[in-house]
């Protein structure tokens, strides 16, 4: 287990370092003068020169990378081109909102998708199973940005039941929940299908295992067999999937965040790309990459902890 942990930690460090390098190169691969791109065409030469000096753009590329690398290691991701606010602070301001959206989206998807998958597996090829299959494929096939636009048009613009934009008033939980419903619905809908299909497939496999047949032979109720024995094993791949899904939603919720003008890391990255504010883009992508790697690692460790077979095979 410890060697597995060390290996995974080492791999995670390599991934984050690679992201650091790619993000650094990104700024230099974009055609044009980085300072002028960031500040706009009409920025005066003095302002451009001041920015170039502050961002170390006059130094050789390797020196620039070393400065960027050492600063990033110490938690200094630079400052916003315009406001000179700390990039780390800007990203961390928006991170909770994205975490809440991703968690809410996956939570409701799991609450619907996992039972759907279980019930389908218990009665394979029944009308319920077929209906679940159709619903699953449909929800997977519809892109989340379309769900976002349609739900916004129906529930916010036409029916006016729910708010169209924003994250809700600070300190007003009810208002924040109102603003969360449509974005969470949009990012979670596709996951209902994914989770239902994944749980169904795993459950079907587990339900054919000898120990499940033995449990039936002992006369245990179906409910006990499914929830106490079968689901416990069948849920393992789903945990990994949810872990990856959660990490992916950190930046993948960008469509919902943009369409609902909801604060979040995805929208932050989008806005900053539009404003050519590259230090913030670099910082936000780096932080989401690090979180992605961390959550994926935690999900794998959780599976290893839950399943002795996985642990033993390490």
């Amino acid at each position, binding site marked *: 287990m410890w060697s597995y942990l060390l290996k995974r930690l080492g791999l995670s460090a390599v991934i984050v370092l690679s992201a650091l390098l790619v993000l650094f190169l990104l700024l230099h691969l974009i055609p044009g003068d980085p300072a002028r791109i960031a500040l706009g065409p009409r920025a005066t030469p003095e302002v451009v020169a001041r920015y170039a000096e502050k961002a170390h753009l006059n130094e050789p590329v390797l020196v620039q990378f070393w400065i960027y690398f050492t600063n990033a290691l110490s938690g200094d991701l630079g400052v916003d081109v315009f406001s000179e606010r700390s990039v780390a602070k800007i990203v961390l301001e928006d991170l909770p909102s994205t975490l809440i959206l991703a968690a809410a989206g996956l939570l409701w998807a799991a609450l619907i998708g996992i039972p759907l998958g279980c019930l389908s597996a218990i009665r394979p090829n029944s009308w319920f199973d077929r209906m679940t299959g159709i619903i699953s494929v449909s929800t997977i096939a519809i892109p989340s940005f379309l769900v976002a636009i349609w739900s916004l048009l129906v529930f916010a613009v036409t*029916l006016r039941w729910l708010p169209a934009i924003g994250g809700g008033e600070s300190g007003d939980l009810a208002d924040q*929940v109102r603003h969360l419903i449509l974005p969470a619905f949009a990012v979670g809908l596709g996951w209902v299908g994914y989770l239902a299909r994944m749980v169904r497939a795993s459950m079907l496999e587990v339900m054919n295992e000898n120990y499940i047949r033995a449990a039936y032979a002992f006369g245990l109720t179906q409910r006990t067999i499914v929830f106490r024995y079968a689901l416990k094993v069948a849920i393992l791949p789903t945990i990994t999937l949810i872990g990856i899904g959660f990490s992916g939603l950190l930046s993948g919720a960008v469509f919902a965040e943009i369409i609902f003008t909801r604060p979040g890391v995805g929208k932050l990255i989008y806005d900053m790309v539009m404003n050519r504010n590259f230090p913030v883009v670099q910082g936000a992508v780096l932080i989401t990459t690090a979180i992605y790697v961390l959550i994926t690692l935690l999900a794998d460790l959780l599976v290893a902890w839950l399943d002795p077979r996985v642990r033993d095979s390490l």
Partner: protein
Amino acid sequence: MIVNSLNRRGFLKASALLSAGSLFGVPLFSDGARAQAQKLTVRMDNDISILDPGYMVGGTEIETQNACLPCLVNLDLEADVYSWKPSVYVEKFEQRDPTHYDFTLKPGFKWSNGFGELTAEDVKYSYERIKTTDWKGNFEALDHVELTDKYSGTLVLSQPYAPFAVAGLTSGGSAILCKAAMLKVGGKFTTEIPAVCGPYLIEWTPKQKIAFRPNPDWTGPKPAFAEVDALIIADASAAELAYEADELDATEITSATHARYKEKLPENSAIQVAGSLQYMWLGMNTENPKLSDIRVRKAIQHAVDANQVIQGAYAGITDKSNGIICPGLLGHRTATKYAFDPEKAKALLAEAGVSGLELELKTLNEQERILAAQIIQAQLQAVGITVKVLPLDEGPFWEMGDQSKGDGYKTLEIWLMRFGTNPDPQEATQWFTSDQVGVWNWERWKNEEYDSLYKQGMTESDQEKRAKIYLRMQEIMEDTGAYVWINHESETFVHRTSVNISVLPSGEMQLRDFTKA
């Protein structure tokens, strides 16, 4: 600061609300707060970065400053051409001669945070400071500010500069700061104005909202709306949907939506075109061998129909351009010397002995511009010129005519360009003087008369003579054959009929001047 607190009681309360809403299907979630008559909700298209007038980005920051900082003059939008009028803060503002502007502040305006009264000393500090900052451009002609007494003084220019009042004193950099408060914070600030003197105080939630709340120290005219929430919505389409969902009282709209709203406006809504301080043209590099013959350039002038471009790419809702001076400004042209005439274009090409001409049309990679470029491509094809449209990202686009960035300017042929300007014609004409060749004059022509007129225009105080100067300058530009004028894109807003909005021609809202209809 964003606060996200979650506790059991709150969760249960929210869950109960949601359940009730879904059970009864009633619009429990409509935004009741905004409906209160005293509160206005508008859209701002960008977050604030730096509110310091000397170092700001512009746009949203100017709108924010307008709501809470003093100034000497405002833009007079009622006049035939844009001019200035004294602001609510001054008893008197007069131009004594071409280099002296006298002002007297009204007594009794208080700075917030206990910094005392607004005085002439604050004006002197602010304007002499702005000369040393990134926004010094419009204040370079200012030599110093002389103080007469506590409330009076004179702005003294080092030389006559006609645009000073209209372009300088109404610009973003003209906000007056509290000297005492500025000295206390070290002479510079970012997003927290050390002291305000206006009807509103600011509460900022980064990337979400700028809330304007009543300033208890304000003794001037009360604004019609005690509170204003400016929601930061970068995406225009999202803002338009929010407006249609009744979550905004006013928002700027795109050309496409303007066209759609012309057919059918949302309920209780009206459209207001604030101004058109942008000018777009098709530019030609006069030094490029393919275009060095003026007859070829004139042929292109005759081959392009700007009206078709406006119809096709801008849904027919922008003003046709006849030069670089925008509508509402001194020297605005109402017609061009050339007309759309494909036959004449063909004749000019034949006369120049040009056939099978192939050109590269560069444009910014934006939907409307690409569409405009494609229409021009088709029009030029009709007279025998084959055009390849090349959309570029901002980095390479803004460098393609810049001589300091390499030899790329030599191969530049034709391009679609749009500039923005301020309410004085001097701003737009400055980019085409001889010393701007290879900087912003990418058409690369020089004309002594133009250069001389440019200098005259800056110092001429007679409006009629000034108008003639700028008309002649545009005629000189057009005569080079290097320009096909396209359009002036407008700043267009949709708003509730219960609200009268006030917007500067450059698109910045003046929230304190919004009124109830």
